[in-house]
């Protein structure tokens, strides 16, 4: 039975490795400039994880195979060996912490820096169970909002305060967001009720939407097309259908789209 178990661990290691190498299902298409580094770090870490997984199971199998049969003489009376212990402690520490520092560099570049000055700012406001988006309009400024102005019946989902002139040209959409291709976009993520999470798989990030906070996050979309926004934080009964369309457009198309929206 020990040898059967050894074979099982080998088969497990090899079939899993093959499944990940062939991968019939994989990461969705990548549509962001910032995601390139994320993907390469993800694949690199996955390779290291894969090597560790395969090596551990091959060794486990090998030891079971070799020492699973009764043989003459007692088992080894072996308590410790500091050479081995020090070596594998140091090697593991270097690999693990090294990965952490490398990953932190990518994180810092994205999250500890502000969006470029030419970034287009869009406000995201989650609500049960829809995504609201707001563009500042030609004046580049968002109008003031007040929670007591929120009225779903009037379509004022975010509570725009009509006494603030800066809000007159704000453009609002629900469940559809468009961005120009190859231009940095800064999102300010908010929620008006419970937690939500703004998740665009093709951009490789999600950001929780938290009531009381406006959390900045930025990206640059690199490929024209239509994609999807999902909600990734449990927000209630219809969490599974909280979806928005995510459109990446050429500059001209984007401006026309925005214009058509502002006319509404």
């Amino acid at each position, binding site marked *: 039975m020990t040898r059967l178990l050894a074979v*099982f661990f080998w088969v*497990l290691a090899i079939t899993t490795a093959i*499944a990940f190498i062939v991968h019939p299902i994989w990461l*969705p298409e990548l549509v962001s400039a910032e995601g390139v580094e994320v993907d390469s770090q*993800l694949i690199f870490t996955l390779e290291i*994880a894969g090597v*560790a*997984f395969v090596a*551990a199971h091959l060794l*486990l199998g090998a*030891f*079971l195979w070799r*020492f*699973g049969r*009764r043989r003459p003489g007692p*088992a*080894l*009376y072996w*308590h*410790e060996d500091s050479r081995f*212990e020090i070596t*594998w*402690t140091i090697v*593991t*520490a270097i690999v*693990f912490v090294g*990965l*952490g520092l490398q*990953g*932190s560099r*990518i*994180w*810092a570049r994205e*999250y500890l820096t502000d969006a470029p000055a030419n970034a287009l700012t869009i406000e995201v406001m989650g*609500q*049960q169970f829809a995504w609201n988006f707001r563009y500042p309009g030609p004046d580049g400024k968002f109008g003031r909002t007040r*929670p007591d102005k*929120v009225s779903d019946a009037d379509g004022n989902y975010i509570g725009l305060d009509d006494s603030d002139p800066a809000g007159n040209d704000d453009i609002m959409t629900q469940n559809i967001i468009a961005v120009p291709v190859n231009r940095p976009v800064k999102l300010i993520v908010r929620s*008006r*009720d*419970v*937690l939500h*999470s703004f*998740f665009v798989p093709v951009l*490789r990030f999600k950001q*929780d939407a*938290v*009531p*009381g*906070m406006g*959390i900045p996050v930025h990206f640059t979309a690199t490929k024209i097309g239509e994609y999807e926004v*999902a*909600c*990734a934080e*449990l927000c209630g*009964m219809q*969490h*599974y*259908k909280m*979806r928005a369309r995510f459109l990446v457009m050429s500059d001209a198309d984007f401006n026309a789209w925005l214009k058509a929206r502002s006319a509404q």
Partner: protein
Amino acid sequence: MQHTAVHAAPRSFIRRYIFSTDHKVIGIQYILLGLFSAILGTTLSMMMRMRLAWPNLATPFLAHLFPTGFPGGVMSPEFYLSLLTLHGTIMVFFLLTTVPLSGFGNYILPIQLGARDMAFPVLNMLSFWATFAGLMVLLSTLFIQGGPPISGWTAYPPLSALGQIAGPGEGKGQTIWIISIAIFCLASLLTALNFITTTLNMRTRGMSLMRMPLTVWAWFTAATVALLAFPVLLGGAILLLLDRLAGTSFFLAAGMVVSGKLVPNSGGSPILWQHLFWFFGHPEVYIIILPGMGITSHIISTFSRKPIFAYRAMVIATFSIGFIGFIVWGHHMFASGMSPLAGMVFSVLTLTVGVPSAIKVFNWLATLWGGQIRCTASMMYALGFVSFFVSGGVTGLLLAQPAIDVYFHDTYFVVAHFHMIMGLAAVFGIFAALQFWFPKMFGRYMSEGLGKLHFWITIIGVYSIFIPMHFLGMAGAPRRYAQFTEFTYLAKLQPLAVHISWAAFITGAAQLILLFNIFWSMRFGKKAPANPWQATTLEWVIPSPPPHDNFGDVDPVVYRGPYEFSVPGAPEDFTLQTEPTTGGAD
């Protein structure tokens, strides 16, 4: 040191088996409570898998049982969320925390230390009955209007703080859930106190700290972690209860508009709950997994007929995991809006906790090297533990990096990761412990054949469920979705969801073999001697099952370390801890 008064076993059925203060009876009570929780929690997960595979399937039988959860005979999305909440809560608290620590720990720890009972036997009884009450309170949510809460086992506010307005189950159901968790926290605190005191004060003569079995180290460390972690959850639970019932705003920000109504609260932060919850929640996964690690070390050493490799390093690793486990909680919050700088610190610390974990795997492998391996069912389960611990552990390397985690967070990749490393690894630890100590507890062996059959179906089944589940995560499928039909990128993944469900049904059904093995063996199993596995620690010195006062009038004296197998020149390939070093016989 140890109290010397020897009490006779209580005579009445109620004092002996129900309100018992005997650590052995209490241990078995915890294990039975865990078994009940496991059956329930697994059934709930089967119902969830049913909906995930076939969202429109009409199930007249279940609709009859839960009329409000199945409008038109089909499970509603909110009922799916209730199942998810109950499944997580039952499994994490009432199975995975309860059985490895309170169950096996209660039964075995005092005996392995050479004590007659826990330090506080009455407290011990109270802990068990409080845990039982906590479970009953939780299950009562199934029978109230609105049903169980829908906010998951993490109960993030505002969803969990708003009341009925946030959905069915968020009324009374959520309040009762919080009360249940608070009771569980109190029970766990008392248990932790008992374990720590017993370990420090009740050791028999010669049982120095560095002669304690690694199981004791693991239970001791887990209890210390529990003592420091559960109060934080208890505090958080009380604050959440106040937000719900007393109009406070610990977790509620100003200006929230819920279901079209402006909520009057102001000044709180929903993220505060996440900090409190995960300050408990991350150490909690170590409370769950440390006893499994101890059991695995114990069993691998026994059935390799070798001393555990690097005992001292194992003790240090156990403690390091417990300690570092307290300063990594932020890795659950990379996408939460927490400071990105804090994210970097938590990331590096999280990868650091991987080091002592990896050391344990190396030491288990080194223990196998040069052994005379005996492939018993409990050894197979312990090796299964190692396999799951590795398989679930390596994906931690990805999730610990915030840049990668903001893609994987709250997807099935995380679900696969934690089910392997703390769910199934810990469950295999339980299987191993059960098969290993069953002869001690009941004086009869569990069937080895049935154990091995159960092992094979379960390990193949579990890998067939969770390796494919990683691919759902790679594709970006969010967890906690009642169905995949609303997104084009998710609809493509449906065949994989169906495959996972079938694998889950087969694996779930195979657990009946284990149930049968347990109850059949209690009555008809082969009779076991005092030391059926030729092992070395104190539980094997006394009869199977042990008498009420374990060692009777004479305290055992310990002369050597816990894993003295194949000592050169010794007459057998195992040397009991009570064997005098001089070799003199009496």
